[in-house]
């Protein structure tokens, strides 16, 4: 996408905003860091828009929108849902944010590229829809889709939920089979499911990256950090402790999670945490009708709503699971 950096410069130069939240160049071509830019030279020097801008900038706006003045943020379609959800929860002050929507063709993920056995990668270049990956030990060409992060492979929508101005075209909802993996697990026997999740969750090191990156986990104090909650524990202890953490976390964000996929992207242990959130989303869609958190500013989240004839818990597995 052309024009992202230029837009940042234009916004700052015209003084229509005081700050711009974007991505800053790193040591390599891929290690971009979310950053706040306050001057045109800063942007010219280190602002980057590339296929490695996977980070969801919405959560930073909780603080940035309260810092005084106007802040511009570049939000990809998936990020806009988090943004709307946070505005809805009164976390982001909408009036202080200028949302520049940026259409997106999916972001590459270095861990995914490495998972193809590529190491010491020195550059990645787009070439006729494919990616040319140069490493210290030779070069290889990857299909673009093979380099995408999980969240982009199963992108739910290219439609921006909100923007003040848009770079690129407004897109529409996509079906990239984001529930297929959930359905695959649902189809397992309980023993297989248990084994699957034990295998995945036992790798958890309780680094809290999933929680701290999650836009829905924006609590002032997390229950797991609060000594009075009775749940405080920072240790990834035997068996159930990490299950408890992830179940409670998934439940706390249920019906507020926009499925932005950041939890899985940042997990250093490659735990497919999105499969927990997506299970809730799939169940909610199946049991209470389709709902996309952050798609609009007014709909009540399904867990804060009810109808007189909701299915009974005993029917949950049958109807929600859809096995």
């Amino acid at each position: 996408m052309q024009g992202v950096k230029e837009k940042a410069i234009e916004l700052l130069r015209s003084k229509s905003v005081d700050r711009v939240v974007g991505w800053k160049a790193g040591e390599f071509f891929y290690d971009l860091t979310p950053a706040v830019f306050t001057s045109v030279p800063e942007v010219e020097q280190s602002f980057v828009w590339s296929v490695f801008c996977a980070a969801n900038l919405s959560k930073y706006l909780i603080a940035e929108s309260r810092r005084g003045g106007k802040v511009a943020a570049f939000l990809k379609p998936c990020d806009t849902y988090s943004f709307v959800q946070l505005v809805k929860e009164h976390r982001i002050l909408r009036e202080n944010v200028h949302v520049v929507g940026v259409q997106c063709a999916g972001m590459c993920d270095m861990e995914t590229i490495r998972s193809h056995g590529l190491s010491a990668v020195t550059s990645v270049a787009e070439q006729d829809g494919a990616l040319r990956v140069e490493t210290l030990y030779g070069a290889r060409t990857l299909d673009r889709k093979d380099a995408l992060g999980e969240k982009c492979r199963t992108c739910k929508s290219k439609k921006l939920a909100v923007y003040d101005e848009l770079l690129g075209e407004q897109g529409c909802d996509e079906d990239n089979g984001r529930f297929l993996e959930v359905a695959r697990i649902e189809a397992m026997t309980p023993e297989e499911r248990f084994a699957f999740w034990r295998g995945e969750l036992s790798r958890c090191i309780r680094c809290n990256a999933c929680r701290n990156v999650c836009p829905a986990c924006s609590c002032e104090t997390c229950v797991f950090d609060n000594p009075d909650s009775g749940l405080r524990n920072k240790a990834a202890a035997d068996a159930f402790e990490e299950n408890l953490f992830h179940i409670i976390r998934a439940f706390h964000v249920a019906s507020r999670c926009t499925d932005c996929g950041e939890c899985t992207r940042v997990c250093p242990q490659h735990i497919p945490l999105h499969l927990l959130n997506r299970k809730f989303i799939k169940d909610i869609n199946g049991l209470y009708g389709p709902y996309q958190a952050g798609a609009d500013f007014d709909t009540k989240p399904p867990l804060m709503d009810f109808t007189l004839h909701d299915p009974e818990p005993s029917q949950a597995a049958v109807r929600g699971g859809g096995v």
Partner: protein
Amino acid sequence: MKQIAKTELDTLFAAITAEQKLYIPADDSAGQAQFTLWRPGLALSGRLNTARSAKDLFFPQVENLVGFRMHAGAIERVETREEPEDFVIFGVRACDCRSFSILDRVFLSEPVDTFYQMRRAHATVVTLACTRPEETCFCAAMGVDAADPAGDVTCWLEDGTLLWRANTEKGEALTEKLPMLRPCPADAADAQQARTRALMQKLPLAKLDLSAFGAGKTRALFDRPEWASLSEACLGCGTCTFVCPTCQCYDVEEFRDGSSVRRFRCWDSCMYSDFTKMSAGQPRPTQRERFRQRFLHKLVYFPENNDGVFGCVGCGRCLAKCPIHMNIVKVIKTLGVTHA
């Protein structure tokens, strides 16, 4: 120097397992290498290094310290410590091996941490020289020779052959029990070492300049304004800390079930907002202070208290794993530029 064909690794591992526990880097279900208890059929990972560092085997994420049973006003102390079996940890890279000496400086200095000491005593460290470093590696800058790691035994994997050199008594003792290792020329690894060293020089971070850091640099670095921008995107998670082979901050917590209490130690992170929180206040109130603490500790405080040794081994895990790609290299490069 000894050797064994790579195809016979299983025999070697089986022989070690016959004597004691053996941990090797093996791929987990997500395709990342992790130190895993060897069992027949478990293959050595082809990855450069494990996702979690080797410190886990000496300083586990959670360990019980002691238990208490409460009886109406009286306390009974319950021993929970278990003496570990001897174990071999195979395939430790040079950087991680260096991290043990850093951890030793913390845990084996007076008063000695006997839990750590015990595990160290029971372990035989078999290192494996690197041949294909990652772009994130900067061990050379930290004075580590990836081609010649330390450890009780040093190994090189070269053209289908594993070269084996015992460095210590412990290493010799292990070697003696492994008759399948056959003698080979002492210079068998030289060629590989030369290649690796050359390769290390070509890495993007090979020339990392650390001259601005080390003992005595607190005043020069503490109030640098760059801390604010460096830390502004930091999520305050513990990823860097937990994958770091030298981070060793811990917390002591208790688990109670009404009548008995178990006191355990678990990893903690100086990046966490509650790390230094007290009822009276918080000496490191924002992420800026916490972030500064972590990097100054590795780059200034630790060297100052430990003969100039940096608290970083250049393994590059934090470069690969930080959710927002902020890391020690960026800190070094940013603060390494002195103001005009």
